[in-house]
Structure formats: C-alpha cells, structure tokens
C-alpha cells in the first residue's frame, strides 16, 4: 500500500519535461515535491499565475502572492501574473498539459465527482469543473475507498458530477488505473507493494482489466 506521499510520487511520474501543470489542493499539492530529476515543469495557479515557486520563508510572506488554495507562495524568475479571466482562458483553451486533482468518485466511463455531497453544505466547485473540461490530461489521486469501505472507483458516479468522461488516470494507495476518459475499459496498470489482486478486486466497484507491466 502506498502512503499519501507515495501516491503523490507516483502521480509525479506522469509529468513530462516542459509540461505546464496545475495541481489541486491536498495530495495533488504534494506532487510538486516529487518532480523527477531531469524533468522541468511549470506550475500554473488558476487564480492568475504561471511559474509558481515554493512556499516562502517566514520573512518572505506577501499577502499579494497566494496560490489557488489561498496559501502564501513565491515567484520564480520565469513567473508571470494575469487576471482570472486570462488564467481560465489558458485552462479552457487547452494550454495546460496536465492536472492532478482529488476526487470523491471516478467512474469507469471517465466521469468525475469531486465537489458536492447532496444534503451536506456545499462549498462550491471553485475551478475544478474548468480544469477537467480544459486540461489535456487529468490524473486523479485519491483514497481507494470511503471510510465506510465503499469503493470510490465506481461503475457509475452516484454523486453530482464535476465532468463527463474527463479522467485519464487514477492513482490510489492500491495502484494505478488507466481510465482513458472512458474510451476503453479500465485497466489496472500497477499495484502498490504488498497489495494483492484479490484485494484490489474486493475494493473496486468498477470493472477493470488487469494489464500489469
């Protein structure tokens, strides 16, 4: 089984040199710590920045410089700032190569649900719907199951959707699944150390083919 950090590290292997990347809040943010050697990526923050640097030292904090999670950050030599309209023109227009996002449910047909649970207070979708609709490749990192034990990799989403047929790849503590935006059957590509196929089958509602390499 992979830890949160290991999930992030595995997702980071999807990064390619020269990619422009948007990372969501939570585990996706950790992906920035595992960018492979020799791979240079540029991080976009959807509130209006390209070329996001690391968190600041305490004496560098600037209230005018935050990321999409409202955390203080820093700039790089290559950074540029722009409006939210220009930022989402960049996202919607297909200029971001890859996004890593969290999820509540991913379905075999590539559908994604990650913004609301009916009956609970809804905080809003923020930029998630725009990201999944616009980014070239969408990688989901999530826990494989709910606390209840229910699978989050489902036959069909029961929660309200964030996007239709938008997920390319899912990484959980159990392994890696190719979703291919629902254009092909789901394939199990990798299993985390110590995980058995029986365990994956038991915890996965979506039908999948085994394509371990």
């Amino acid at each position, binding site marked *: 089984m992979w830890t949160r950090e290991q999930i992030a590290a595995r997702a980071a292997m999807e990064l390619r040199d020269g990619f422009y990347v948007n990372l969501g809040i939570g585990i996706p943010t950790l992906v920035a710590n595992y960018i492979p050697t020799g791979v240079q990526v540029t991080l976009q*923050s*959807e*509130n*209006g*920045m390209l070329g996001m640097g*690391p*968190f*600041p*030292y*305490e004496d*560098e*904090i*600037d*209230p*005018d*410089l*935050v*990321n999409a*999670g*409202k*955390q*203080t*950050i820093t*700039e790089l030599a290559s950074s540029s*700032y*722009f*409006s*939210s*309209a220009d*930022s*989402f*023109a960049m*996202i*919607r227009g297909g200029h971001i190569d890859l996004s890593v996002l969290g999820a509540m449910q991913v379905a075999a047909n590539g*559908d994604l649900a990650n913004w*609301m649970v009916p009956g609970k*207070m*809804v*905080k*809003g*979708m*923020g*930029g*998630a*719907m*725009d990201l999944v*609709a*616009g980014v070239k490749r969408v990688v989901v990192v999530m826990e494989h199951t709910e606390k209840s034990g229910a699978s989050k990799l489902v036959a069909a989403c029961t929660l*309200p*959707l*964030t*996007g*239709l047929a938008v997920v390319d790849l899912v990484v959980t503590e159990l392994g890696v699944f190719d979703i291919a935006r629902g254009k092909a059957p789901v394939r199990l590509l990798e299993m985390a150390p110590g995980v058995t196929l029986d365990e994956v089958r038991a915890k996965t509602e979506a039908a999948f083919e085994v394509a371990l390499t």
Partner: protein
Amino acid sequence: MASKVARTAADALSGVLFDGMTIMAGGFGLCGIPENLISAIREAGVKDLTVVSNNCGVDDFGLGILLAGGQIKKMISSYVGENKLFAELYLSGTLELEFNPQGTLAERIRAGGAGIPAFFTRTGVGTLVAEGKEVREFDGEHYVMERGLTADLAIIKAWMGDHEGNLVYRRTARNFNPMMATAAKVTVVEVEELVVTGQLDKDNIHTPGIYVDQIFKGAHFEKRIEQATTRPREKANA
C-alpha cells in the same frame, strides 16, 4: 473635466448605493479585496444586495462583514468554504446562493464588460451547472451556453492608480479585479498608491481609466493573510 479622485471610500460611493443593487467585488479569498470599500458599504447599511465575488471573505473580514450585517441577499460565487456564518445563513434559507465554476464566472464577467451577451464553454457540461441551459454541439464536442454578467457597481482594489483612473495590480492580487472593473455601470477603485497621471508605464496599464468612475487612496490596508504557509529556512552553509 470632472475629477475622478475622491478623498475617502464614503466619498467615492456617495450617491451610488441603493437597496437591492448588484455589486461585483474583486479579490480571490482575502487577496486583492477592496477592504476600504467593503467597510464603507458596511457603514452605509445598504441591504438586499446581490454580490458577485469568487468567495465571500471570512467571518470577520472581507465580504464576511456584510454577511454579518445581514446586508447580502444573494451571492454569485465559485467557492465559499472559509466562512461559518455563510453556512448558517445558507442552511437557514436566509441567503441565496448561485455557484458558478470559477472560470465560467470570470468569463461571464469579462463577457458582460465586452458586450457579449452569451458564449459557449465545455465547462460544466453534464453537471448541475448545465441544468436549464442550452447545450449545443460544435465540431463533435458539447458545450453549454453561459450568459454575460453585469452589475450596478464594481468595487475594485488596485495597487497603483493615477488621476485618470489608469490602474496597475500587483502579483496575484489582480485576479477578478480587471474584469469586474469593465462590467459595472459604476466602478469605484481603492488603491494603495495614487499617483499623478503620466507616472504609470503606458504599455503596462492593466485597467485603462475609461473603466473607472471614482478612485481614492485607501485609508488603511490590513491585507490579512488567509493561510500563511511557510517553509523552514535551510541552515546557512557556513
């Protein structure tokens, strides 16, 4: 020419506010919010407001103080997670709420200012966001039609501005401010530095003065930080 320069926030808003109006408020979280203007609106006590803003501040700062004052009837936002009072008011049915995807919200405002009554986007197709809206196919892909958005008043925070109303924003405090400045009948701006016309770089004016009706130097900027996230300083290589 009548001066656009006001002395105070109250001055700048004089004659502009009315109950039931729609106000666009710049900012992302607490970053780049027009805090002096929000305070003045709190003071003025105007109510039944529809507020268009990506977020709704926190309980005691930003738009949160208009919520606390019972002045907001409806919010049009993309994310309101940082506010306990918001949840209470919403769940008790006191507050209306319209969620827009963040990029759709930004583009609706840009469209409103640019004379575009509607546009198509892939964002939200097949979700609750598309309910009741036209969905159309272009070149084999489905898109939902979204409408341009305008307001009676935009309250804007810029870093620097000149007497003509030309504005420059700083870093990620730009966010929703530039589009909102174009999309309201009246646009009122607070700046940290008010300079003489001609001091700003003409190639780098983010909002041309044509969009600005009133401008003033804010009396006080708290610029509160929502999530101060830092890293430890490495040991010096001594």
